[in-house]
Structures are given as C-alpha cells and as structure tokens.
C-alpha cells in the first residue's frame, strides 16, 4: 500500500503536470510556443501512478502525447518548456518540439509522434536490460490507436518470446483524434490481444492515481523478478481537443454524457478527495498548493519565453556522432 508520504508525492506530481498543462493551454494563444501540442489533461494519473514505481535507470518511451510521461518520470520541466518555445536549451535543443521529449538522465528514452513507432524501441531497452542482466524494466506508453499499427503486434511477440522486462501501458481514451474506438477495432480487441500473446494483462481505472500506483507496484516488481512482459490497460479520457489548447466539445464527435462522466472523474479531483478524506492534506492547503504551483510555473514559462535562442546554427549541426 502507498504510504501517506507517497500519496502526497503522487499528488504533487499530478498537480505539477496539471498546472503546467493548464499554463500551456492558456499561453498557447500568445503564439510563442510554435509547435503542435497534445495535452494530457484528464489522463495524467496513469503517467504518475506508473512512474511512481520506477527508478532513474528504468526506461520509458512515449508518443505524441508525452508531456505527462516526461514530467512524471522526472524529466526536467524547464527543458521541456524551453523545447516548446523552440529554445536551444530545450530538451532536444529545439530540434524536436513538443513531440520529441526525452531526458537521458531520467530514463526517458524516446518520444516520437509516429503512432507506435517507439514501441519496439522500448522493447529494445528491455532487451538491453536482460542482455546486461540488469534488474530494470522498460515501460511503453501507448494510446488505444497504437494497437492498430502492425509493429505493435510484432513488438508484443518479441517481448514475449524473448522474455523481456517490459511493461506495456495502454491508455484507452476511446479516441484516435476524432474517431471512436468502435469504428477502428473489433469489439474488445484491446482487452484480448495481449492475452493472446500469453501476457499477463490487467485492467485498471486510468483516473485513480493511487490505485494505479498500488497495483502497478506489484506488477513492476514481478517483471523485474521474472523477466516477463505484462500489459496494463487503463480507461481514461482526454479533456481538451486532440491537438491544441482548447476544448472542442462543440464539434460533437464525443457524447455529452460521456464527457460529463469523465470530467466528474477528474484524476486530480479524485486524488484531492482521497487526500482530504484521509486527512493527509486539508482543503485549504490544497487550494494553496494550486495557487503556489500556478505562480511558480508561470514564472518559469515567462522566463523561458523571454530566453533567447542561443544554440548551434543549423549549418553547424553535426549529422553524425
């Protein structure tokens, strides 16, 4: 069971991510973060809950919607924000933009915007751990649409037959851009597929960070011990538009009731309730944290926005190591 202290840590992680994403959403219209952004608001519990049980040597890979994964795994927030502004001290030196977050020191191996492209790379990280007899694991964060790409299955196959310490974490937010999962996949494919490959498969509520942290703790320990891949499927929901800073509920591609249901099940609210009812933090201190985080991160954004591009000119960028 997660201790009080850890519950607080999880809360702070979640709050940090939420705060930063809300500031992006507000500031995007300033037109200074000039790259596509895919916000995780509403889905952060998964990143936080899983990464809670990882260490710096464990590796994660992510996709276009990578902010939460990056931050939850301990990625440097300032480097991320600088990357959004296209600055040279961004985590990829301005080369990648928001869909290419990584932090070598923190075990954030790769995030790439081609759906499913980072999956086998994550499997390769797992391969390296087994090869080197390390007790680390690789976590592969994917969306529900990722299972439509062939490379996903090829990767499941490798992870399984090579017995690799890999955890697949599938965030099912029901949508791929504007398209519902029912239009894209046979019924329950997403629930059955990893089992067909003989993988232990778990179904969790994607909006309950504490539960995710609790359950994934055991799963992750087992993977470390046994070098066998496992699969966690979590239901969750994206609150804002697929790409960009706004709500897009007026477009009517999603059911109003569904939206309402999920907004009520906001992972941050849920967690706050737990904190209050378990008397870990008071309502007023929560309010204070919200405000102080907002202030703190707004300052960082302001800083990054003002900072000049000081990097290598393109002509001097080396193509080869």
């Amino acid at each position, binding site marked *: 069971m997660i201790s009080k202290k850890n519950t607080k840590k999880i809360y702070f992680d979640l709050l940090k991510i939420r705060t930063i994403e809300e500031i992006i959403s507000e500031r995007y219209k300033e037109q200074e973060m000039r790259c596509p952004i895919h916000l995780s608001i509403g889905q952060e519990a998964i990143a936080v809950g899983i990464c809670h049980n990882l260490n710096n040597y464990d590796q994660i890979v992510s996709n276009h919607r990578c902010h939460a994964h990056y931050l939850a795994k301990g990625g440097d927030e300032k480097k991320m924000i600088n990357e959004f502004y296209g600055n040279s001290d961004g985590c990829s030196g301005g*080369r990648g933009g928001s*869909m290419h977050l990584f932090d070598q020191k923190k075990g954030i191996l790769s995030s790439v915007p*081609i759906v499913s*492209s980072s999956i086998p790379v994550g499997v390769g990280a797992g391969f390296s751990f087994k090869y080197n007899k390390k007790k680390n694991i690789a976590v592969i964060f994917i969306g529900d*649409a990722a299972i*439509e*790409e062939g490379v996903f299955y090829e990767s499941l196959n490798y992870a399984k037959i090579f017995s690799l310490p890999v955890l697949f974490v599938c965030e099912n937010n029901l949508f791929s851009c504007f398209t519902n999962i029912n239009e894209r996949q046979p019924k329950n494919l997403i629930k059955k597929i990893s089992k067909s490959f003989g993988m232990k498969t778990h179904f969790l509520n994607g909006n309950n960070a504490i539960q995710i942290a609790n359950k994934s703790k055991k799963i992750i320990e087992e993977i470390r011990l046994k070098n066998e891949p496992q699969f966690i499927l979590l239901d969750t929901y994206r609150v804002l538009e697929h790409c960009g800073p706004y709500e897009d509920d007026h477009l009517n591609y999603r059911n109003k009731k569904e939206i309402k249901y999920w907004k009520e099940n906001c992972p941050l609210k849920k967690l706050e309730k737990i904190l209050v009812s378990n008397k870990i933090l008071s309502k007023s201190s929560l309010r204070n944290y919200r405000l102080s985080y907002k202030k703190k991160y707004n300052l960082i954004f302001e800083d990054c926005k003002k900072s000049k591009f000081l990097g290598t*000119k393109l*002509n001097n960028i080396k*193509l080869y190591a």
Partner: protein
Amino acid sequence: MPKKRILTASQAINEATIMAMKKDNSVYVIGEGVNDPKEIFGTTKNLKKIFTSKRVIETPISENAMTGLCIGSAMMGLKPIQIHQRVDFAILALEQIINNCAKAFFVSNSKHTVPMVIRMIIGRGWGQGPMHSQILDSLFAQIPGLKVIMPTFPKDFKGMILSAIKDRNPVVILEHRWLHNIKGDVPKKYYLNNINKIKKINNGHDLTIVANGYNLLEVIELKKILKDEKISFDLFDLNILQPLETNAIINSVKKTGRILVIDSGFKNLGIGSEIISRISETCMEKLKSKPLRIGLPFVPTPSSRFLAKSYYLNKKRILISILQVLNKKKIKNNLSKKIKSNIPIDVPDLSFKGPF
C-alpha cells in the same frame, strides 16, 4: 470571356474529388481523418454527406494494410483515393507502395493495373519537427512504376487530380500544406491536366529556372523585381516528378545557357541532381555558367523556428542563387530591401495561427 472563379487550392481539390466521384462510382476516398471535422484541411468537405460512408471511408491507424487494401481493390477495378494527412505516414506503407503498388503492372506482364491515387500532405506549419514535415519527393520519384506529381496552383490541383484519378497507374500527389490556402482561378468544368510532361510557365532569356511547390511561388514573386533589373527567365513548374520529362528544360538551357534547379526536398540526391546530370550529359557545351541546385540541407527538419530559418529556402536565398548563376556577385542593396518580408519563417501568411 468566362468570368474568373477564384478558389483556394483546397477547394479545388475538394471540387475535383466530388466531380470524379459523381462521374465514376468506382472512385472512393479512404484515409485516417477523412471524415474528421477538420476535413483534411477542407479537402474532404461534404464528401461523406454526398457519397455516404460507403465511399468516404474512415480507417484505423494502419497505413500499410490500408495501402494494400487500396491496391487490391484497384487491381479489381476500383479507384481509391487514399489520403495521408502527412506524407510521413506513408513511410509505414512503403512496402506496399514499392512492391505491390508500383510493380503490379510490370510483374503481371502488363495485365494488372493499379489505378490508385495517394494524396500525401507535406506538413509545413508550426515546427512539427523531423517526423512530421519530411518532403520525400525524391524517395517516391525513385520508385519505378509510380507517377509522382506536385501541383502548385489551384487550377492545376483540380486538373491534375482529375487526371490522376483517371490514370491507370498509381499516382502519388505531394501536396505542400502551405499551398492549400493559395487562391486562383479554377474553371468550373471537368478538365484534365497533363501529368506526363512538365510545362514552361514563363518565358525569358537570361536563365532557366526549375522549381515546384511553395518555392515556385517565391520565384514568381521575384519575377517583377528581376524584371526591373532587366533580368528575365524561362521558368518550369516541376509539378511532375515522375515520369521526369526533361527535354523542354534541356531545350531551354540550350537557349539561355544557364540553369538553376530548386528542390523542394533535399538537395542531396534530389530531383535537381537528376536534371543537372541530364543537362550536363546532353548539352554541357551550351552552358555559359555552372549549373546550380539549391534545396534543403541534408539534415532532418528541425522544429524550432530559429532553426527552420536557415533550413528552408526563402526569396532572398533564391535571389542570391539566381544572381550566382548569372555571375553577378552581389545582390544590389535595393533588391535585398525589396524582398524583405515581415512574415515569420513558420507561417505562410499572417492569418495562419497554427498549429498545422
């Protein structure tokens, strides 16, 4: 004289698609997001309403099988228009494109055809970075069996897409995102534009310029400025990359003695390299100055606008290259001022508000 009918390129594409689908029941549209509210930048607008989801098909994120499906259906006589919101997604389908799509006609002893159109959009907008704004023009031009076209003007978008749909061969259409909002006169009727032979779109004396896509517009904008300096040029719209017909270019070079080729993609192994080689192999002796290619540097597309600045070509760099081919060492100061732009590097015009 008929009145002008001004449409954007995306409207022209949309109109062409609707016309083709009305004319021929075997034409269907398929792709990720074709029925999205965003309507593939407006190009698939109303399609589902008119033709139902039987013929306007939203799909899973599985580009390779989607392509194979299109190929199989095309071999059976249907005419798919497949759409990739980013040319980059077509990379996942290269096996099907290179093997079944491009080779079926050859390997079936000319019995099978694959009358299929693949629209691929080149994503230049707010810094989408190295995996969302590749050009890949010469990659596709390198696959024998494909036709590869890259229209610039709304009128051509319509006529060339209609031709592509009618063509019995697989046709790849590379659409530069920033051209979608360009406006121009587009005839109302059904018409076909040649997709086998490029055309000269300007006549001049001093040099020959070959360009396409967004760069072509920049060349055209330079025309007036250069005219003031008494410089005129033959201009070819390289909107057909395959089959690559270079005779007209060669004839022009024989006349002007000077050539500049502007690649939309990498200069390295770009279409320009093929054109310059052919010129050198056939009429080197007519050249009054060294031929010149310009294009993208051989590194992935950077995201940051600070880096994009030196990545992409622009009017100034094109102008410098023109002067170089003309053996005029320096840009005159006033020329340089005339082309100064107040538009940032990462938007096509000031109305553009990102992200794509």
